[in-house]
């Protein structure tokens, strides 16, 4: 324990270290690292708030800037962009129902409903507080347990991932607040959309219809912006009276005492879930926010409020996704394995600086390793200080007339989608998904299960086929006693299916549905 404290101290000293910086000829002594952390957080919040523009594109564009920085300053700034974007992403999710990041899809569900009831302020504050708490805890988790947790991540092979995805997909149906059949239909449709593109094993093109832009599949941002963003705009323009409800009581910014009471347990559960799932390479942090939502909906006293603006549904997933975002640094820092696209970029940034990411970083460059961890905690603190006062300003956005607000949102979404692979086709595709999403809304089908199916489907297929290749076609590999983790997930999925299929529960779901319409 003392060793850890000593290490953290090394980190804090590194972050606050005064450095002589020469800037256009003038040399100043500045705590340069902490300034880079602030810049990263600011930039991250900004791009998180802009719909569709994600951290991957931003970090890639900023890579050349980091050539001339010290390795620690560069990494601190890039990490700041990453978790800053996680923070900012929830803002657009809550205010305008557009998930800026895949992990904020879940925040849309309850957060946007809260905003519609004039509780955007408390929702934003809850998101900020939940993220801050989770960020602090998971930073400690990294400092204390990074190496042993990395070993746990290695225990997850193709079979384990497949079973985890099965559990995730079964749980996805719980996401819907309406009809179960429709939720399942949307999950399956999402799975089908996920199949578009090149087959990983044989290289065969599937469902591309000769369109070369579809060769790599449909992008997540394209689908999310269309199904959530554009669809929301169309649906809102349809009804005029709704707008007044929306903006009437935006005055209250902070959560009430009652709200605070209700968010404590979900935040704690979300943090644990997020820290645990975040270490898994490949969608861990994302799964965490879905898992947390599912869990809260099942255990909460207020489960009848879910789908109608339950604060638990913001607090839990927000803490989970932030905790997951932090712990996803563990495989990177200890094994040199990136767990998502942003982490892959961080590896690129490290390699430019001549640092080979891997277990030796911790021992060979303790300043860098612990400095980065200390900066994560400080960055989270900065974000909360930055974001709480900003809430008032964000909420004012809601009072901006539609005729200004919607064209600008559309513009930003188009820029964001275009910036990913510079293809005009993606913007058209986004528009198509917007129309499709509108049809779905009219039919009472919700987009969240589709999105989850769309994200998990390809991951599941990839791992399923890999597991089958490795087992030479033996399906028992998923429930063999030699793979207890995989077996556990399968058993949990079956149990969950049984619960969902139980007649009594089904009736209860129907009641909820009737209430809503």
């Amino acid at each position, binding site marked *: 324990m003392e060793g850890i404290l000593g290490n953290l101290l090394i980190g804090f000293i590194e972050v606050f270290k005064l450095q002589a910086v020469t800037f256009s000829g003038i040399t100043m002594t500045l705590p340069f690292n902490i300034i880079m952390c602030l810049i990263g957080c600011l930039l991250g919040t900004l791009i998180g708030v802009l719909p569709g523009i994600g951290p991957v594109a931003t970090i890639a564009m900023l890579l050349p800037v980091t050539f001339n920085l010290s390795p620690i300053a560069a990494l601190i700034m890039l990490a700041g962009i990453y978790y800053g974007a996680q923070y900012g992403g929830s803002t657009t999710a809550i205010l305008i129902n557009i998930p800026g990041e895949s992990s904020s899809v879940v925040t849309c569900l309850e957060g946007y409903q809260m905003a519609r009831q004039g509780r955007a302020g408390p929702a934003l504050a809850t998101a900020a507080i939940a993220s801050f708490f989770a960020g602090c805890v998971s930073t400690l988790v990294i400092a204390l347990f990074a190496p042993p947790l990395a070993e746990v991540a290695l225990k997850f092979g*193709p079979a384990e991932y497949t079973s985890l995805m099965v559990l995730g997909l079964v749980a996805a149906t719980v996401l819907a607040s309406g009809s179960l059949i429709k939720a399942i239909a949307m999950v399956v449709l999402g799975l089908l959309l996920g199949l578009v593109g090149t087959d990983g*094993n044989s*290289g065969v093109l599937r469902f591309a219809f000769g369109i070369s832009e579809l060769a*790599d599949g449909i992008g997540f941002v394209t689908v999310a912006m269309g199904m959530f963003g554009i669809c929301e705009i169309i649906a809102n323009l349809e009804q005029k009276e709704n707008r007044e409800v929306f903006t009437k009581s935006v005055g209250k910014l902070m959560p009430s005492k009652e709200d605070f009471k209700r968010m404590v347990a979900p935040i704690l559960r979300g943090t644990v879930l997020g820290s645990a799932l975040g270490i898994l390479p490949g969608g861990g942090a994302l799964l965490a926010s879905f898992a947390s939502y599912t869990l809260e909906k099942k255990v909460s006293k207020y489960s009848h409020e879910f789908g109608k603006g339950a604060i638990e549904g913001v607090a839990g997933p927000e803490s989970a996704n932030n905790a997951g975002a932090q712990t996803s640094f563990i495989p990177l820092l200890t094994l040199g*394995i990136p767990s998502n696209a942003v982490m892959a970029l961080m590896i690129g940034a490290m390699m430019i*600086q001549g640092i080979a990411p*891997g277990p030796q970083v911790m021992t060979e460059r303790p300043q860098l390793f612990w400095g980065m961890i200390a900066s994560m905690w400080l960055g989270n603190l900065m974000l909360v200080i930055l974001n709480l006062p900003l809430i008032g300003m964000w909420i004012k956005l809601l009072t901006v007339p539609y005729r200004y607000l919607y064209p600008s949102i559309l513009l930003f979404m188009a820029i964001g989608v275009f910036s990913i692979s510079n293809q005009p086709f993606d913007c058209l595709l986004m528009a198509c998904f917007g129309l499709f999403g509108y049809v779905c809304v009219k039919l009472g089908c919700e987009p969240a299960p589709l999105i989850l199916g769309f994200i998990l489907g390809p991951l599941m297929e990839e791992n399923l086929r890999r597991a089958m290749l*490795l087992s*030479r076609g033996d399906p028992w590999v998923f429930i063999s006693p030699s793979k207890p983790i995989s077996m556990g997930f399968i058993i949990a999925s079956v149990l969950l299916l049984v619960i969902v299929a139980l007649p009594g529960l089904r009736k209860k779901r129907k009641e909820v549905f009737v209430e809503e319409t």
Partner: protein
Amino acid sequence: MQRLLVLFFLATAANLAAAQSWPAKPLRLVAPYAAGGPIDISARQLAAKLQDSLGQPVVVENRPGAGGNIGVDLIAKGPADGYSLVMSAIATLAINPSLYPGLPYDPIKDLRHVTLLVQVPNVLIVTNELPAKNVKELITLAKQRPGKLDFGSGSTGSTGHLAGEMFKMMTGTFMVHIPYKGSAPALADMMAGRIHLMFDNLASALPSIKSDKVRALATTTKARSSFLPELPTLDEAGLKGFDMSTWWGVSMAAKTPQPIVERLSAEILKAMDAPDMKERLRNMGSEAPTIRTAEQFTSFVASELKIYTELVRRSGAKAD
């Protein structure tokens, strides 16, 4: 005849004039892969250098898709005015033509190859649990247990996959190919002992080799790598002539005026020889390439294309 001569003269003059005033506007450098990969990173490093020496902005544009084919096709079919460049690689120039039927461009006829930027060896690595301590023992093991060993790779048709196929062919063994999405997850599965071996890019495998998470048996290039000087090559280990590496460079549209190609080639070489750039390229696992001029690069592309066409055909890998 006279008119033709005049026309010819005018055209040459215009060409020359264009080349002399070049570059008069910003250049675009297409990186046909997603941002953040090694090719994208080296594109951005090169762009920063060229910007200084050419006095015009060099804008990196990511156009990912279809294994890089979309971005390369864009330049192959684009204007040959000397302002459009693409990061071309072994995949788009040598492997994809036989892997993808109906490739929209011809890597020899539609493109002018300017400079080879990076050449990285692959390394044959095995999981620590595998009893084989050298290449010879690995071959024996593979022969004893036909179809029981798994080799991973970053994707179907990657250099890692094809090096494995080449190894199988030259040794007469049979191993099962397990494709991943990128070499990082494959490496993770190898550390955990779920797959037995892979032919991974030196840069991505090096940290795991250095920290003894996996065991390196040989490099796939003819010469040893200065990063692992004690490691034998496959050629030394008995697989005579085994010489495979991952490489990428800069190409332009085929009709780009010769003076511009020459100028650009010189500028890129100058950038590569600058100490800081040299260091960064080395950090990617690249030795300074011996192929320097545009002509050498062009004939290198032609010979690689021949080798991989044959390899893809014989191994039966196909994407259609």
